[in-house]
């Protein structure tokens, strides 16, 4: 039987680095899913991601989240990056976990729409809807920590889902 849910690549950091990249992503799947568990080496930086090494202002996002006492909803428009968290960033001890769904990522007739769910027990839980206003197939994803680095042990796994 043809594989439906396929692990494409995994990165588990053995040394700190500021960016983790999945590149040369095959366009043969229907959806992509990324699962992350992240720590920072210092501070509480806000992690981000971008697509196809594109830093133009083609990204936007809408979020809903809560931190145990307050709920939030916000958005960013015409952005050069997409956020992975909203009010809280990474820290050095408690992993931040999230799943991002890239639906129809290789469809060149539509802009790219994505969804994520994120959480960490001591701070925040929520979700995002994203839009990348490009019809290009997604072939590269860069996860970055602009003011710090990802710590040893941070993991990023890319899956491909193939529909019938």
């Amino acid at each position, binding site marked *: 039987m043809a594989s*439906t849910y396929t692990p494409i690549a995994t990165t588990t950091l053995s040394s700190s680095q500021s960016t983790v990249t999945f590149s040369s992503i095959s366009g043969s799947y229907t959806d992509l899913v990324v699962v992350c568990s992240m720590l920072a080496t210092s501070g509480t930086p806000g992690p981000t991601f971008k697509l196809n090494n594109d830093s133009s202002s083609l990204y936007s996002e809408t979020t809903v989240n809560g931190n145990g006492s307050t709920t939030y*909803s916000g958005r960013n428009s015409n952005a050069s990056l997409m956020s992975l968290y909203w009010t809280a960033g990474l820290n050095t001890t408690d992993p931040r976990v999230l799943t991002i769904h890239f639906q*129809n990522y290789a469809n060149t007739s539509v802009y790219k729409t994505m*969804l994520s769910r994120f959480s960490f027990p001591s701070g925040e839980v929520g979700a995002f809807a994203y839009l990348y*206003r490009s019809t290009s197939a997604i072939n590269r994803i860069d996860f970055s920590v602009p003011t710090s680095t990802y710590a040893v042990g941070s993991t990023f796994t890319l899956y491909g889902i193939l529909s019938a």
Partner: protein
Amino acid sequence: MTPMLGIMASQISGHLSIPAYESISTVTVSTAVSSISFTSIPATYKHLQIRGIGKPTAAGGQELYFTLNGDTTSNYYSHQLYGNGASAVAASYGTTSNAYITYWSGSEFGSFVCDILDYSNTNKNTTTRALGGHDLNGSGYILLRSGLWMNTSAVSTINLFLSSGNFAQYSQLALYGIKG
């Protein structure tokens, strides 16, 4: 929402088979249609998952609904938490004739992932959960929804439709089965 199963992560390139997650059927819209149905769903899986993108042909915001096994009576409940970029809002829909999945706009494609849990268990009513929404670069919604179908029958048919209008060209919904 990823399936609740052990998923291998490997540095090995190529195609490692994960037989617990199988593609059942996919519908890709070439000409606008008013509804999309998955029929004759086998009872051999533990859970179902629907993944997709879509855009209504009607202008403005539209709800994406579903009914199960052709049941259009008042047998559904839904709850939600959503954000519209300004406020986080909780709401519920009781005894409706369909369940709520997500909220889309005729201006741009949105997406969703919906789990139908323990769908073939005839000892309990059927529950669903969905993550979905859309962003329009200045507006949009992100929604977390749960649904209840007050019927213990195994789910064999899923019918998806919008509150108004049709699914536009390039909309695509795919049904997957998760073994347990």
